[in-house]
C-alpha cells in the first residue's frame, strides 16, 4: 500500500482494513491489487508475502467479482505470480496460494488470449507459470502438490472440447477448447488438446501407482466430478480408471490409526464420487458397473472395518493338519494314542487313497497329484522328507497302520459303535469327525430304548391323571376385552421389535433366527391381517343383528392395531417402508373383499395411505428418492389424494426432484394411472414455477407442448408459490 514502511503487524492490520473495504465493494479491487504488488517483492517479509498470496487466491476465487474485472486483474498480477512460483526458496504457504491463484486465473487468461491472439507476452507468462507448476508437481510438499493437481484439472477442463458457450460470457467453468478458432497462432487447439490428454493421464496415475497417499487420492477424486460431467468424451476414461482402483488395497496389513483413517477415507471418497455420478446421470452406460463397484466396496468395507472391530484378524483355517493345531497336538502325543492324529475310517469299503489320506480338508482331498509332473512330485517329496519331524511322521505311519489293521479281520470290532465305550473322553470327542458323533447319539438312544422299555410303560400308567375340567371363566365385559386385546397387540409389537434387533445382529454371524419362521416378517403378516381381517366375518353376522355398538368396539380394536402399525412405521419409515406396503396391500385386498359382501362397508385403505404419506412428507428430503418411488409405485391403488400429496412436495425445493421422479416412474410403469398422473404434472407446472425446469426435462416427451404452457400466467403464479412455502 501507499503507507510508509512500518512494523509488520501494523502493515498487516492496514492490509486487513483494505481487504474489508473490497469485500464490501468489489469496485476497489483494481487499485488495491496494484497497491499490494510491491509488498510481495522477493525481499519482503514472509508474513506479508503470505498475506498477499492468500489475498490473490481469495480475489480470483471470489464469486462476487465479475469475470471481466477478474480478467483485467489477472493481467496485472501475472508477472508477480510468476515471480512467486518461480522463486525456488519461496515459502510453501505462499506457493500454495499462488498455485491456487494460477488455477483460478488460467481460464481467464486463456479466454483473454482467444480474443487477443497477439499478446504473446501475456501468454508466455502464463506458460512459464504452467510449466513451473508441472515441474514442482511431483517434488513439492503434499499441501502444494494437491493444488498442482487442481491446477492440472483446471487446465484439462479448459483444454478439452466442451459444449458450445459464448466466449464473451463470464463463467470460467465454461471456458473450453471449443471457443478457440482452429487457426489460432498462440494456442493451436490440436496441441493443447494433446497436452490436456497427457495431463489427465498424469492426474489419473495416482490411482495406478502403488503408493496410496490418501491426501492426493482424495484431492484428485474430488476434483474429477466436473470433468466427468462437463466433458463426456473423457468421462469413460476417467471412470474406467476409478473402477479399477482399489482403495482398500492397504487394508490387509495390520492398520495403524493413521492408515485406517486413510483407507476409510479413500474408500468413502471413491464411493461418494461414483454415487454422485450415478445420481446425476442414471442413464450412464457404465451405470451397472458403477453400481456393482459401489456395492462391492460397501461389502468389503463392512467386512474389513466391522470385523476388525469385533476381532482382530481373520479366523484360522480349520485344517486338521494346520500348523497351529499340530503343535497343540504334539504336546499330547507323548502320552496319547496315535489314533488322535489320523481319524479312523468309517465302516464300509474304502479306496486305497482314502486309506492313506490324513487331511480333513475337502479341497485338498480333491486335488489330483497326478496332474503334477514327476520331477516336481519328487522335488516336493524330498523337501518334505527332509523337513518333516520324525516323530510326526512316525505317528502318521502308526495311524495308517491302525487303519490298515482295522480293515483286516478285526474290522467289525473296531467299527461297530455298538460295542464302543459310551463314556468317551472329552479329548476324543474333539477329534471325532461329525458323522460319528451323529451315529453315537443315535446309538445312545437305541441303547436307552433297549434298557428302559419296561420302566417307561409302568410309569406311564401310574402317572395318568383323572378327568379334569377347568371351571368356566367369568364372562369378560367389553371394555375388559378391549383392554386385554390392546395388551396383546402391544405385546406382539414388543416381540416384533426385539426380533428386529436380533435380525440386525445376525449380520454379525449368529444366524439362528433366519432358520425359523418366527421372524419379523411373519409377525408383521400376522399383525396386518389381525388389523384388516379379524372382524370381516363377524361384521357379516352382526349386520343381521344390527348390533351397532359392539361393532364399533371391535372396529376400534382393529383401528388400534392400525394406529400402532402406523406409529411403528413412522418411527423409522425409511427402513419400514416394506411393512407399510405389506400392510396397505392387505388393507386394499380387504376393502375389495368387503365391498363385494357389502356395498356400504367402511373402507380403510385410502385413509391410511394418506395418513402414512402425511406422516412421512415432513421428513422427506432429496436423498429419499428410493423410499418415495418405492412407496408410490408399490401401494396397490393410487388416488387423487396421493397425487395431491406428491404435488404438495413440489412446494419444497429440496423435494421437487423426488416428487417429479416418482411421478415419472408412475407414468412409465403404471399405464392405467398415466392420464391422472400427467394431469397432476400439468397442475404442478401451473402452480410451482421452480419445478418447471425439472418437470420439462422429465415430462417433455409425455406432454407435448409442456414448455409453452401457461406462459402468460407466470406473474400471478409466482406470488402463489411464495405463499405456499410459508407453512
Amino acid at each position, binding site marked *: 500500500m501507499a503507507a510508509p514502511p512500518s512494523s509488520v503487524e501494523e502493515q498487516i492490520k492496514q492490509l486487513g482494513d483494505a481487504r474489508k473495504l473490497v*469485500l*464490501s465493494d468489489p469496485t476497489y479491487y483494481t487499485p488495491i491489487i496494484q497497491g499490494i504488488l510491491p509488498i510481495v517483492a522477493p525481499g519482503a517479509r514472509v508474513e506479508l508475502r*503470505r498475506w498477499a498470496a492468500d489475498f490473490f*487466491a*481469495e480475489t480470483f*476465487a471470489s*464469486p*462476487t467479482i465479475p469475470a471481466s474485472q477478474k480478467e483485467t486483474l489477472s493481467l496485472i498480477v501475472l508477472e508477480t505470480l510468476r515471480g512467486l512460483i518461480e*522463486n*525456488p*526458496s*519461496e*515459502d*510453501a*504457504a505462499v506457493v500454495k496460494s499462488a498455485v*491456487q491463484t494460477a488455477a483460478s486465473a488460467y481460464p481467464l487468461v486463456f479466454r483473454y488470449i482467444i480474443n487477443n491472439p497477439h499478446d504473446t507476452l501475456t501468454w508466455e507468462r502464463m506458460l512459464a507459470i504452467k510449466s513451473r507448476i508441472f515441474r*514442482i508437481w511431483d*517434488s*513439492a*510438499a*503434499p*499441501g*502444494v502438490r*494437491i*493444488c498442482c493437481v*487442481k*491446477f492440472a*484439472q483446471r487446465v484439462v477442463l479448459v483444454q478439452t472440447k466442451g459444449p458450445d458457450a459464448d466466449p464473451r460470457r463470464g463463467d*470460467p*467453468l465454461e471456458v473450453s477448447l471449443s471457443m478457440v478458432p482452429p487457426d489460432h497462432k498462440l494456442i493451436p487447439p490440436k496441441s493443447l488438446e494433446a497436452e490436456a490428454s497427457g495431463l489427465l493421464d498424469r492426474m489419473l496415475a495416482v490411482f495406478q501407482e502403488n503408493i496410496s*497417499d*490418501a*491426501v492426493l487420492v482424495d*484431492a484428485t477424486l*474430488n*476434483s474429477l*466430478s466436473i470433468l466427468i460431467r462437463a466433458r463426456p468424451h473423457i468421462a469413460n476414461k476417467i471412470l474406467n480408471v476409478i473402477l479399477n482402483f482399489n482403495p482398500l488395497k492397504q487394508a490387509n496389513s495390520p492398520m495403524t*490409526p493413521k*492408515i*485406517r*483413517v486413510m483407507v*476409510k*477415507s479413500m474408500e*468413502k471418497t471413491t464411493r*461418494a464420487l461414483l*454415487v*454422485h455420478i450415478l*445420481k446425476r446421470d442414471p442413464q450412464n452406460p457404465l451405470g451397472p458397473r458403477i453400481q456393482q463397484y459401489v456395492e462391492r466396496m460397501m461389502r468389503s468395507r463392512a467386512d474389513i472395518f466391522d470385523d476388525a472391530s469385533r476381532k482382530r484378524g481373520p479366523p484360522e483355517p480349520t485344517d486338521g493338519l494346520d500348523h497351529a493345531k499340530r503343535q497343540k497336538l504334539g504336546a499330547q502325543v507323548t502320552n496319547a494314542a496315535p489314533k488322535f492324529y489320523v481319524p479312523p475310517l468309517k465302516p464300509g469299503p474304502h479306496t486305497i487313497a482314502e486309506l492313506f489320506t490324513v487331511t480333513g480338508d475337502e479341497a485338498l482331498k480333491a486335488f489330483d497329484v497326478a496332474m503334477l509332473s514327476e520331477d516336481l512330485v519328487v522335488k516336493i517329496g524330498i523337501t518334505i522328507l527332509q523337513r518333516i519331524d520324525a516323530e510326526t511322521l512316525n505317528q502318521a505311519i502308526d495311524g495308517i497302520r491302525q487303519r490298515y489293521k482295522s480293515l483286516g479281520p478285526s474290522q467289525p470290532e473296531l467299527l461297530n459303535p455298538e460295542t464302543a465305550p459310551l463314556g468317551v473322553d472329552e479329548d476324543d470327542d474333539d477329534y471325532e469327525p461329525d458323522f460319528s458323533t451323529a451315529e453315537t447319539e443315535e446309538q445312545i438312544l437305541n441303547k436307552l430304548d433297549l434298557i428302559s422299555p419296561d420302566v417307561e410303560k409302568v410309569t406311564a400308567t401310574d402317572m395318568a391323571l383323572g378327568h379334569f375340567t377347568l371351571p368356566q371363566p367369568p364372562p369378560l365385559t367389553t371394555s375388559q376385552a378391549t383392554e386385554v386385546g390392546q395388551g396383546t397387540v402391544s405385546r406382539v409389537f414388543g416381540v416384533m421389535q426385539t426380533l428386529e434387533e436380533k435380525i440386525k445382529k445376525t449380520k454379525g454371524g449368529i444366524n439362528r433366527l433366519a432358520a425359523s419362521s418366527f421372524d419379523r416378517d411373519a409377525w408383521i403378516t400376522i399383525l396386518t391381517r389381525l388389523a384388516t381381517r379379524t372382524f370381516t366375518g363377524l361384521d357379516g353376522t352382526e349386520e343381521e343383528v344390527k348390533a351397532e355398538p359392539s361393532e364399533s368396539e371391535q372396529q376400534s380394536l382393529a383401528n388400534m392395531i392400525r394406529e400402532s402399525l402406523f*406409529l411403528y412405521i*413412522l*418411527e423409522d419409515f425409511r427402513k419400514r417402508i416394506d411393512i407399510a406396503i405389506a400392510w396397505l396391500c392387505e388393507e386394499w385386498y380387504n376393502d375389495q373383499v368387503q365391498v363385494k359382501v357389502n356395498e356400504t362397508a367402511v373402507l380403510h385403505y385410502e385413509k391410511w395411505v394418506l395418513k402414512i404419506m*402425511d406422516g412421512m412428507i*415432513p*421428513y422427506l*428430503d432429496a*436423498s429419499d428418492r428410493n423410499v418415495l418411488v418405492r412407496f408410490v409405485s408399490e401401494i396397490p391403488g393410487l388416488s387423487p389424494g396421493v397425487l395431491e400429496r406428491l404435488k404438495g412436495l413440489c412446494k*419444497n425445493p*429440496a*423435494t421437487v426432484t423426488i416428487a417429479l421422479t416418482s411421478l415419472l416412474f408412475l407414468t412409465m410403469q403404471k399405464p392405467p394411472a398415466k392420464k391422472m398422473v400427467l394431469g397432476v404434472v400439468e397442475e404442478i407446472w401451473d402452480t410451482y414455477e421452480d419445478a418447471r425446469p425439472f418437470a420439462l426435462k422429465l415430462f417433455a416427451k409425455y406432454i407435448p407442448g409442456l414448455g409453452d404452457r401457461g406462459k402468460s400466467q407466470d406473474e400471478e403464479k409466482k406470488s402463489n408459490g411464495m405463499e405456499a412455502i*410459508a407453512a
Partner: protein
Amino acid sequence: MAQTQPQAAGVNGTSSNGNRPDQGGFKLKFCTVCASNQNRSMESHLRLAAANYPVISFGTGSLVRLPGPSISQPNVYQFNKTSYDSMYKELEAKDPRLYRANGLLNMLERNRGVKWGPERWQDWQVGVPRLEHTSDRGSEGVEGGVVDVVITCEERCWDAVIDDLLNRGSPLNRPVHVINVDIKDNHEEALIGGKGILDLADSLNKAAAEERALNPAGFDSGNAASRSGFDERVPEIIGEWQERWPNLPAVWTLAWF
C-alpha cells in the same frame, strides 16, 4: 431432526464452557454442519467460537425440524428465513411446559445467543463475503466466506456436503478438509460431541500453526518428506484423535470449494 431426551432437560449449553483467553496466532477457520443447524452443529459452533476460532455453521436438511407433541407432528421451519428467537417465542407460546421439559427452549435460548437463525448448507454461496454477520459468535475471521475445515455431525450430512461440493464443480480451487464426527442427536451427546470437536480443532490448529511457523529455506529445496505440512498430517491427527474419542467415529476427505 433434533431428537430430544427428557433426562437431558437440565443441560444448558450456554454457560457450560468457559471462554478461554485468546492466545492469538494463526487460526484455522471452521464450519460445523448437522441436519437442522440446531443442536449438534450449534453446540460445537458455540464451543469453537468460545475457544476463539473463526466458525460458521449450517444444516443439510431440506427444512428445520424440531420435535413436536408427537412423532407425526414435528415443528417445521424454513432455513434462512426463521430466526431462533421467533422459534423460541412460538414454542414458548404453544406449550411452555412441554418444550421446556424436552430441552427445546434451552437449546433455542443458547442458539439465539450464537447467531440469528439456521442456515442451509446447500444455499451457502461459498466465497461470498459474510460482512453482515458481525454479531454472530465466531464471525471474526470468516468475513471472506470460506473455511479450512468442515466438520459434520452425522454421516448423512457428510454425504450431503460432499455431494453438494461435487455438484458445485470446485470453482474456487480451494482445498477444504471435510470431517465427519458421528454424534447422536440429543442434548447430552451433543455436549460430548462438542468437546470432541473442540479437541479435534485444537489438534488440527496446532499442526497448521506449526506449519506456518516452520518457514523453511525454500519449498523445493531438500526433499519434501523431511518436512510435513498441515494437509498431509490431517489423517494422522484424526487417527490419534480417534484413539482418544473411540465413541465418535470419524470419516475424512480432502475436498474442494
